[in-house]
């Protein structure tokens, strides 16, 4: 008899009612520190303006973000909105995780942003997400060693050689040479590209231009000896902080690792002397996306509209130190006078947006091997790059 009551009690327990009041929008992000504080301040502003909506910010570690997202969203446990770099967009859009926002977005809204930061959010003709901030590479230089930044790569090499002649313990220039992300400025500056055509997945990484870019970096390392050997990110940071490295190619995040703000400056990357083209780094857009499984898409889009507004962008720039995507912010007098923001904004016009297609994910690791072989280990660029392209093709089968 006891079992019967137990069973009945269990059945009754299953039918507990669920209570809801108002709307709660869940937003996943991977921000920390000042960036997170600025975002949550902007979210509180939105709540104050729309009393029936609450915004819950959930911090998800960056490394685990894509996996958590692609597990949670299809099962309906994911967020309404989320913030991430645009390079996984194609994968997510093709998997049906993202909602296109072209229905809500209109011209005045898109006019807020630099078009370069919106373009990477278009996949197969649809707009997914709105840009919050951009990330790219520029040239950091040590003001105690160099007075004016170089305009061309020949300038850069000459300056570095002169410095090395005066002080042998000082190095000329460095970046993470094995990484395709850091090699991209030279690849594009020599006239090369990752893909042969905008839509097809055919790679152009074995082109003579791509080979020339690898040979150029090897020259800096082996012939000119201005590039430190085995330059890991930690070594680069420590050399630059010790004033033993004149130029570093790095992104806005590098600022957080530097000591003494008045001893370094940032400039756009130089023109490649061999081709006369600017060294164009990859452009990454950090965007706010709408989940395809959100049950409050209209309200979620209102939050997107608010968080990407010029006012919210000013707050994110001022308090969070983000390089925001809104034009209006850079027209403010205070921002225009900020050399850091100005340098990256100038660089923005000379970027190539990082491909958002799913295929791109398989390119990084083989290219890392190829660049390390061609630049460090002296394998002929044609062979090294050929191997990488072959390996990407085999893996993609």
């Amino acid at each position, binding site marked *: 008899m006891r079992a019967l009551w137990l069973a009945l009690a269990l059945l009754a327990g299953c039918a507990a009612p669920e209570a809801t009041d108002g709307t709660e929008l869940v937003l996943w992000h991977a921000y920390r520190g000042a960036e997170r504080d600025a975002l949550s301040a902007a979210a509180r502003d939105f709540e104050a303006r729309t009393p029936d909506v609450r915004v819950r910010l959930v911090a998800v570690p960056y490394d685990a973000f894509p996996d958590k997202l692609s597990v949670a969203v299809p099962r309906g446990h994911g967020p309404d909105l989320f913030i991430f770099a645009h390079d996984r967009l194609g994968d997510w859009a093709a998997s049906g995780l993202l909602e296109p926002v072209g229905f809500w*977005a209109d011209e005045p809204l898109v006019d807020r942003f630099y078009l370069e930061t919106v373009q990477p959010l278009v996949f197969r*003709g649809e*707009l997914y997400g709105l840009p919050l901030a951009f990330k790219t590479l520029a040239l950091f230089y040590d003001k105690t060693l160099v007075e004016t930044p170089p305009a061309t790569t020949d300038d850069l090499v000459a300056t570095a050689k002169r410095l090395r002649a005066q002080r042998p313990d000082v190095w000329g220039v460095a970046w993470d040479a094995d990484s395709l992300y850091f090699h991209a400025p030279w690849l594009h500056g020599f006239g090369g590209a990752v893909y042969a055509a905008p839509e097809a997945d055919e790679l152009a990484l074995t082109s003579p231009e791509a080979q020339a870019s690898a040979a150029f970096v090897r020259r800096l390392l082996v012939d000119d000896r201005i590039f430190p050997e085995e330059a*890991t990110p930690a070594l680069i940071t420590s050399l630059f902080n010790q004033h033993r490295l004149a130029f570093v190619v790095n992104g806005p995040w590098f600022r957080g690792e530097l000591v003494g703000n008045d001893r370094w400056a940032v400039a756009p990357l130089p023109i490649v002397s061999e081709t006369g083209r600017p060294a164009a780094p990859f452009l990454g857009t950090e965007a706010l996306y709408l989940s395809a499984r959100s049950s409050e898409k*209209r309200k979620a889009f209102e939050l997107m509209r608010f968080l990407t507004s010029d006012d919210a962008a000013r707050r994110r720039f001022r308090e969070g130190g983000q390089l925001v995507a809104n034009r209006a912010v850079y027209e403010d007098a205070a921002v225009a006078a900020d050399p850091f923001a100005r340098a990256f904004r100038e660089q923005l016009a000379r970027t190539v947006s990082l491909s958002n297609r799913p295929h791109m994910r398989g390119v990084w*690791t083989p290219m890392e091997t190829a660049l*390390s072989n061609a630049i460090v*280990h002296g394998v002929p660029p044609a062979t090294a790059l050929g191997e990488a392209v072959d390996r990407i093709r*085999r*893996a993609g089968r």
Partner: protein
Amino acid sequence: MRDERPGFVAPVLAVLLAVVLGGAAFDRFAAHVTGEVTAWRAEVLALALVEGRAPVARLAASDGPAARASLVAQDGTGGKYAFLRRYRYTDASEAERVGRRLDPADAADKAVADAYVAALTAPAVVPLADGGARAAVRREGATAVVDARPVSVPTAPFWMVRAVVGALALAAWWLLLRRTKPGRWQAVLGAGFAASLLLTALLYSLGAVAFAAEGAVAATRAALDGQPLSAPALARGGGVALAALTVLPLVLVGVAGWISRSRRSPHRAAYTYVGPALVGLGVLVLAPFLFGLALAFTRASQGHVEWVGLQNFARILSSEGYGITHPLSFYFTLVVTVLWTAINIALHAGIGLGLALLLNRPTLPFKGVYRMLLIVPWAVPSYITALVWKGMFNKQYGLVNNVLGLAGIEPIGWFSQFWTSFTANVVTNTWLGFPFMMVVCLGALQSIPKELYEAAEVDGASRWHRFRHITLPLLQPALLPAIILGSIWTFNMFNIVYLVSGGQPGNSTDILITEAYRWAFEQGQYGYAAAYSVLIFLILLSYSLLTQRVAKKAEGAYA
């Protein structure tokens, strides 16, 4: 329980409970089938609409399935920005509005926008309050929204079936009970219960699924003028539910039988104690293992998982067409891994044993201090050690090259050749690995009775003889398991290889586990990486089976 006469109340209640609970479960199942069919039909209609197989007017006019249908299509000419679309809207009751963006200030436009947003907000198909379903389907920029009316499945006949089967089960139990000895009644009851449940479930769910699906298919076909249709989602959902309902009673009766048998088993209490641990083991170890195993036979891309059979294994074992000596070939990596394991274990055990012999001398001063210092490498987290050593192997600024420079040796680019890079990995891992072996040896050495050495000394045995014939044999029982365990750890020592050499040069120093990691988390090919880990598992399994036999033999020799 009284032995002389079984109780009547309990079995009758049990059968009644079975009929009632079973009935409730089947009702839920019937409701599920009804909802499924309605949702499926709404989706089929929306698909037909969005693919242009049936116009809005015909869907709405055909007396029946579609209560409301609308189509919102995007228009590619967005003016300044090509990716901003204009929308046009079609509905049975409204005129078509083409060629401009919807204006929220206009009442008609707002209604259109609301319908569209309602469709977007719903996850593909949602149930409606009246039992119907709304489907929103998107294709090539067009979105169709269809509200389908509910399809009902008559359930009354199945109540009768259920009652008859319940009565039959009760009668069967009653007849059987009269012929069997008291005390066995649980088993009989279990069998009767299961039979009734099984039969009812089969009849009911088969009937319901067939009836509902057939009716829905017929109605939809009529609406779409004989378009051929299939019901994949329904067939799958119904099939799974049916299988679950059929298997569940079998499982229940199995468990009941097992419990009633173990009532007589002397290990009953033991099972109870082990139970929670077994459940934990199943959830934490067995389930992920089986999932990983299943993953090895799939290939996932862009959210679609595809069963590819043994293709992943074939690709790995054929080395993707690379020659055996190519650093990216599976066999090259396997040889590197085996070499890595063998050299490491030899060094760990050798150094560990040597230091243990030194520290075991009773006359050594400050023994405790040395012992503590030697255990320090083990206590530091391995990835910190790895990063420190990577810094020390730096060509220009690393400590190793600086020290070699004092001896007049040119700086070595540790990570630019295979053997130097491999050596850097081995040195780092040896630093990490020897303290464990040392601790194991030290413990075993201290448990060897001193009398043996004294006796040997009296017999005139030399130092070497004492080591060879007393120390080594008595160390073996402790050392052998440590070596087996250590080699399995080293075989899968991800941190050191990934952080120190990172596979440089050209992925040649990668071991199997770092290769698998690259496939999973750098290339995103989880199925391929799972196949790698299955192969690693098989290699380690055969290794441990082999060593177990060796260890047993060794035990036999010295026992």
